[in-house]
């Protein structure tokens, strides 16, 4: 078994896991737990009927807007906090305090300020990904190798050139890490908003399924979200290796 290819082992592991789930689901009542075959069947019918893709498209709208806003604000701010000792010393206690509050607990405020609908959902996506991106970018900007900056300085690079030609490329791996973590959080926020604010799109499908004790329907949505998260993460990883071929991640 030790000499098998890792990809083969992965496939074996997935097959075993699904088989165990199928067996377990057939043993207990179907109401309590749906087997993977039922979930896949539901996924196929809902996709064919167009309900699921439409709901997903609706959900992606506030995901995209909220995440874009959060990147635009958090990345420059992260650089500022990471590169200035003073800014870091001033911002850190406040950021740590904010970070300790679960974003879901801020939902009452989102209701008051942005309402139950699209604006509220965008706000939650923004809020949940913002701090994650900020913290990671700041860590990256702080950890730029000082010798790289010194080399640039000794060759007479101006401050602006130092930023665009040395610091920015050196911290890009962290920016990518921040985007990956932030996007996964944003996807979490996307469904959280639809469940806690007005139930629409995928959240509505889940709530309806819950009311009808329809396990397969709920698991189908969860599975889709899981795929979305994986696709986002792997997509950004792929992009990273194309844009930053010199950077080898451990």
């Amino acid at each position, binding site marked *: 078994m030790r000499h098998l290819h890792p990809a083969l082992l992965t496939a074996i592991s997935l097959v075993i896991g699904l088989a165990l789930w199928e067996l377990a689901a057939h043993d207990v009542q179907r109401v309590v737990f749906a087997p993977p075959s039922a979930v896949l069947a539901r996924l196929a019918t809902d996709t064919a009927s167009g309900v699921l893709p439409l709901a997903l498209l609706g959900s992606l709208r506030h995901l995209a807007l909220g995440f874009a806003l959060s990147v635009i604000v958090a990345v420059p701010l992260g650089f500022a906090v990471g590169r200035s000792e003073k800014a870091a010393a*001033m911002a850190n206690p406040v950021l740590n305090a904010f970070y*300790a509050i*679960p974003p879901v607990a801020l*939902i009452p405020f989102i209701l008051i300020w942005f309402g139950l609908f699209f604006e509220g959902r965008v706000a939650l996506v923004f809020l949940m990904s913002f701090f994650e991106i900020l913290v990671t970018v700041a860590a990256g900007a702080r950890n730029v190798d000082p010798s790289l900056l010194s080399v640039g300085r000794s060759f007479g690079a101006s401050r602006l050139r130092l930023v665009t030609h040395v610091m920015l490329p050196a911290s890009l791996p962290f920016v990518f890490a921040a985007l990956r973590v932030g996007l996964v959080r944003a996807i*979490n926020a996307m469904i959280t908003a639809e469940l806690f604010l007005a139930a629409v799109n995928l959240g509505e499908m889940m709530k309806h399924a819950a009311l009808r004790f329809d396990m397969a329907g709920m698991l189908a949505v969860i599975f889709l979200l*899981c795929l979305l998260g994986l696709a986002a993460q792997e997509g950004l990883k792929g992009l990273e290796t194309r844009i930053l071929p010199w950077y080898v991640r451990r």
Partner: protein
Amino acid sequence: MRTRLFYNFLGITLALAVWEALGRAIGEENFAPPSVVLPEYIDLLRDGQMLRELANSLLQMLVGYGLACFVGLPIGIAMGRSRLGDALLHPWLSMFVVTSVAALVPLFVLVFGTGFAFRAAIVFVASVWYVMLTIYQGARGVEPRFIDVGRSFGASRWSRLRCILLPALYPYVITAMRIGLVHAIRAMVVAEMFVIVGYGGLIYRSGLSVSTAPLLALLVTLMVVGVIANALLRGGAKIVAPWYEERVASVGSPQT
């Protein structure tokens, strides 16, 4: 050091000043300023309901979180140190770690009801994957040289594990527990706000009142809990593995 403390203090003061100004400008019903929240906070402390609910919720959370550490740490170490374990378990780990906790809540309500089992289970699934992932990254990064030295001196597999691997992993254990705790507290609030019980339920209900002062007071308490828990775990790290402080700081950044 002193100047840093000065800037820390300046940052906090500025944030409070902005909060106060903003609160006065847009009104208590939108965003209560600290001068209104403080008396409300003292009232809530005197009343005792806030702290009772908090203690109760935290106790239930600790069961799920403790279980997550108990299960997640050994499995994560095994994954990091064995190629077979890695290949078999990693696909499941990367799948579950991206799954949204909020999406699982309606499902878990159906399976577990809304009582203790439900909350503990949600906290468990929310934190176990993060604990596992963090300790896995730590276990993979252990210097191969350390292990090789042990091997050349004829240390058995068991004593290599006990005397080399585990001490090298202490700081990651603490980091994994810290990251897990952040997710455990978040999950507790998500679960309780969804079914409106416990501390999360308190937050939800106070969100419906006219003034935002009680809501902000509840959030401040939650913040204090998070900061204290973090400090306790950091302090623990300093005691069990003082030689690794730097390492802990560098893996603290959230990277999945």
